[in-house]
């Protein structure tokens, strides 16, 4: 379970908080969708939960482990799939995964088996020995995902895992994530694809200006919001139609 209490983050030199006094509980086995417009604070929140950023105030626990006291143990539990491709382009898919697996402390035949299993599941087995450079966006996304789940994390943070991929790749990624969830992995997922989130997530939270403004199961939220036919309708009703451009 992820327990977040009064969590805030204000960047140095920023006028306002990116995340402000956020309270949230995510149960084990959930697929939690963290939704919000650009600059709402989604990535900041995920970065804090995955220990990439230090909170300005407040605290959180993952499986009872505190960020301050059990940082290293906490980090074992989590996997992060960043929005950017965190791969070496001149290495093959297999070499990349073997390297990342080694960095997670995996080794030997079990690592090779894990890599091959994931490659097979993601439909990339026949491209295992091709360089990442030659891969399409969808293939890179899949390798990016595998590199973060080789150590079977209990909690997986996904920052827009399907951005820029084709429908086929997206289906494979989502199916694989479902399998991981069924196997017990809690998934925290951010995306701008609200239809995808509606189908995929067991619960969603809409965040805007660093504050959680809406929380619940997708169908419940749709039912609660007048004139909303889908999650996108709820989203626009809660966050408004004004553009959120900022530089």
């Amino acid at each position, binding site marked *: 379970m992820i327990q977040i209490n009064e969590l805030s983050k204000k960047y140095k030199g920023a006028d306002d908080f990116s995340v402000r006094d956020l309270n949230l509980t995510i149960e084990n086995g959930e697929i939690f969708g963290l939704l919000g417009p650009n600059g709402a604070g989604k990535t900041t929140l995920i970065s804090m939960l*995955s*220990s*990439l950023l230090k909170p300005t105030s407040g605290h959180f626990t993952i499986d009872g482990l505190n960020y301050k006291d059990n940082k*290293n*143990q906490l*980090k*074992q*539990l*989590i*996997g*992060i799939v*960043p929005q*950017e*491709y*965190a791969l*070496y382009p*001149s*290495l093959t898919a297999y*070499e990349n995964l*073997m*390297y990342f697996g*080694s*960095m*997670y*402390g995996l*080794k030997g035949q079990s690592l090779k088996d894990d890599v091959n299993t994931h490659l097979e599941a993601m439909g990339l087995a026949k491209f295992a020995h091709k360089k990442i450079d030659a891969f399409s966006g969808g293939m890179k996304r899949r390798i990016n995902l595998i590199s973060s789940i080789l*150590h079977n*994390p209990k909690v997986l943070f996904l920052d827009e895992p399907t951005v820029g991929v084709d429908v086929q790749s997206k289906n494979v990624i989502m199916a694989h994530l479902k399998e991981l969830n069924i196997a017990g992995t809690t998934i925290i997922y951010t995306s701008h694809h609200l239809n995808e989130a509606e189908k995929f997530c067991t619960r969603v939270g809409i965040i805007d200006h660093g504050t959680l403004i809406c929380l619940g199961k997708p169908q419940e939220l749709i039912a609660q919001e007048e004139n909303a036919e889908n999650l996108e309708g709820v989203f626009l009703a809660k966050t408004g139609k004004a553009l959120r451009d900022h530089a």
Partner: protein
Amino acid sequence: MHKLWASTYKEFLLVTRDLGGLAVLFLMPLLLVIVITTIQDNSFKSIKETKLPILLVDMDKGKVSEDILKSLADSKLFQVDMAASDEEAKQQVLKGDYQLAIVIPENLSSDLQIKINENVDGILSKFSDNEESIPEVKSKMMPKEVKLYFDPATQQSFKSSVRNNIDKMISKIETETIYTAFQEQLTDDPSEDIFETEKFITFTEIVPSKYKEALIPNSTQHNIPAWTLFAIFFIILPLAINMVKEKNRYFCALKNKSCLIRYSSWWKDYCIPSGFFSAIRTYVSGWNFSLSTNWFT
């Protein structure tokens, strides 16, 4: 150890597949060695092989200037050219045509001879009972000044060395003149040796060597400290580039702060293999160039 090996292997793969980068990393140290050793080689040649051109202004036209000229020629370090005047010598040195000009003043030999003769006469008269033999009037001569013009870029050590050598030459000439003056006063036979004028103490320079000839390092070998410093720069540069690249790709944050940190120290598992390979690239190219070729010997 396993993670260190994995990082090293990954680095090896990255290095061997980046042929363009690899070529640059090999060529840059080679270029560096060529540039530095070429620059240094000029000063090496000026010391080792070529004679240093110097100007001599002989206003004395006497024995002292003759002896100085002979000593300079015998030293085999200088190529002595003559200048007509003090001003001409000064201008030539200022223009950088010569590193050194020596101006020997007028009547140096004759005045030195007169001064020494007077001193010798004075000394000998002290031993004589005949009061008439004591010279009554001594000539009033101003001290003589040998001028040395140095190129402003000349090293202080070289200046000191030249000053000392000229001083030594003049002292030797003075001593010989004193001996000669005494000889003339004490005997009428110039062939009679009263004084032993040969040097009693001499110096022999021995360069320790296993071989028959002294092994003098060439400019490439001499510059190992210089290009080692640059090699460090070439280690840091790719390392820094890698760090920036990794940071941009989210790797730095991942490695530094995420779950990887429990198993892997970013410094140990990433920087050391990267630095190690960069170091190998730099040193291999540098040493190969330095040791397997003898461009400047």
